[in-house]
């Protein structure tokens, strides 16, 4: 038997890929293209690769152009965020949460703050709840714009137009977030018991002005892509996630909703003021790459609807309860709490164990991308390598969150 061709000195993931080829050969398993098993090539894709949107490394076993096996290798962006929490007070840790899944920082902050509030029994004032929803939904739109934009850019030449349109339209959202929080991406805005500042004067008008423009922009994206033959050929029926996969692999976010499972924590495990707001959980039926794109586009419309309602319903009043004052320390009673928040990518869970001191005793994140990424090998197997790029793009992975 000839040795499969290797592109670099093997590490454990590479060796695993080679071992799997040998096992398949030894067992005499007929492949779909019988007789080509010996021609398999193990290719190292990443960690620096334009279509992985971060430092994701895929050890891909190729059979000609067809992907036979994929072994994701992660951890290149690991910054031991869970360990860092054990030496920081509950306030000091908030800026670090922003940097886990940096594309949707506000949503991550919210997940963390929710858990601290649950542990310490803090109830934020009503105005702060509406501000939180507005910020989180603005950030959800911004995140989906990046997710869809870069995904389409990977697929076809027209994507270059799409990605520029989407980054252009993300700017006004980041401007709004910057006005309110002082930062474009690393916000450090939420506090246990409210938010840091009230909204600046004129924010509401500028927010409404953007939201009035936004539906036309979404129509523009759809007209570019939805009927494009190249885009449809590369997305429809590719990388299908079934409902059983959603349950088995605990998939959440657009991945689950595109497969027809209406799992949205804003509805299934409601928090904040979401029960008072009127919006739809966007689902599709087929679970393929195209449906995931459709879910994200529709969710942007729903987010707009939510923000408009919040602007109408938002009462006047304080934006934080009296916890935010020197020495900026909260000491939750001993115990543990798990809360989950609907991040643009799925269920962002935070599990905190408190021993009654100023620092969390243990903090654990459930990052949606980390969990969703597990199904990637299953989706890619049997597809062409070019479609594998489409599939990983449609999962909207953020490596900052996966590696933590």
């Amino acid at each position, binding site marked *: 038997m000839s040795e499969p061709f290797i592109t670099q000195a093997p590490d454990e993931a590479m060796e695993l890929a080679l071992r799997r080829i040998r096992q398949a050969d030894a067992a005499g398993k007929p492949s779909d293209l019988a007789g080509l098993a010996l021609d398999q090539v193990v290719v190292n894709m990443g960690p620096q690769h334009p279509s992985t949107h971060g430092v994701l490394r895929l050890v891909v076993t190729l059979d000609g152009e067809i992907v036979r096996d994929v072994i994701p290798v992660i*951890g290149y962006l690991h910054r031991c965020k869970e360990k860092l929490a054990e030496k920081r007070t509950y306030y000091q840790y908030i800026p670090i949460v922003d940097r886990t899944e940096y594309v949707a920082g506000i949503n991550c902050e919210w997940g963390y703050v929710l858990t601290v509030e649950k542990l310490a029994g803090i109830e934020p004032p009503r105005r702060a709840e509406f501000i939180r929803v507005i910020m989180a939904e603005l950030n959800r739109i911004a995140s989906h714009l990046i997710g869809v934009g870069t995904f389409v850019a990977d697929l076809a030449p027209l994507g270059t137009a799409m990605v520029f349109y989407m980054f252009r339209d993300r700017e006004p959202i980041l401007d709004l977030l910057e006005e309110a929080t002082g930062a474009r991406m690393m916000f450090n805005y939420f506090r246990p018991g409210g938010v840091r500042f009230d909204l600046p004067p004129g924010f509401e008008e500028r927010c409404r002005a953007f939201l009035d423009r936004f539906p036309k922009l979404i129509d523009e994206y759809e007209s570019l892509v939805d009927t494009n033959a190249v885009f449809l050929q590369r997305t429809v029926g590719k990388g299908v996630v079934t409902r059983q996969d959603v349950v088995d692999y605990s998939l959440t976010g657009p991945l689950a909703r595109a497969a027809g499972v209406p799992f949205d924590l804003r509805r299934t495990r409601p928090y904040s003021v979401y029960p008072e707001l009127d919006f739809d959980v966007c689902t599709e039926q087929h679970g393929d790459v195209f449906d995931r794109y459709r879910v994200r586009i529709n969710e942007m419309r729903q987010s707009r609807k939510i923000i408009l309602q919040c602007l109408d319903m938002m009462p006047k009043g304080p934006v934080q309860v009296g916890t935010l004052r020197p020495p900026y320390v909260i000491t939750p009673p001993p115990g*543990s709490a798990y809360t989950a928040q609907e991040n643009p990518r799925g269920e962002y869970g935070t599990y905190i164990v408190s021993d009654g001191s100023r620092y969390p005793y243990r903090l*654990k994140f459930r990052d949606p991308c980390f969990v969703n990424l597990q199904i990637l090998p299953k989706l890619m197997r049997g597809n062409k390598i070019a479609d594998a790029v489409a599939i990983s793009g449609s999962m909207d992975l953020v490596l900052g969150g996966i590696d933590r």
Partner: protein
Amino acid sequence: MTAEIGTVHLSMDELAARLARALPGELTELRIQDPDTVIAQVDPAALKRVARRLHDLPEIAFDSLTLISTVDYGPHFDCVYHLYSFAANRYLELHVRLPRGKPAVDTVSDVWPSANWHEREAWDMMGIRFLGHPDPRRILLKDDWIGHPLRKDYVDLIENHPYV
């Protein structure tokens, strides 16, 4: 498998009672924490059996494992399995207590496929062995890392890093 979530309506007391009935003698310390979460303690030796039963419970199957958390309490480790039932829209936290001297427990990755990476992470970060795991490699740290950083007694020695 249904496309709907929360089709079975159960109060938390009913849910706890049903769990206790379905798993007689297996769940020690069954209590209700939140409006939607039940916390149960289970013996490590019984974990696989309990996991299988919970996964296949009629009507309110806890068929989805969302997360495995690990906590270092000093004399023992706690392995927390966060389970979710799509049908009942309820959460169950399954706590397994492992002695520090021999932190090992059966894998549940054959019951819930999503457990695979969570168990690898638990091994990587906390040094808990999962017996029968199909792919027991480290996941976030590099292959030749020494020690398990999230243990409370972890010391990071500079000698362990040849590249710095």
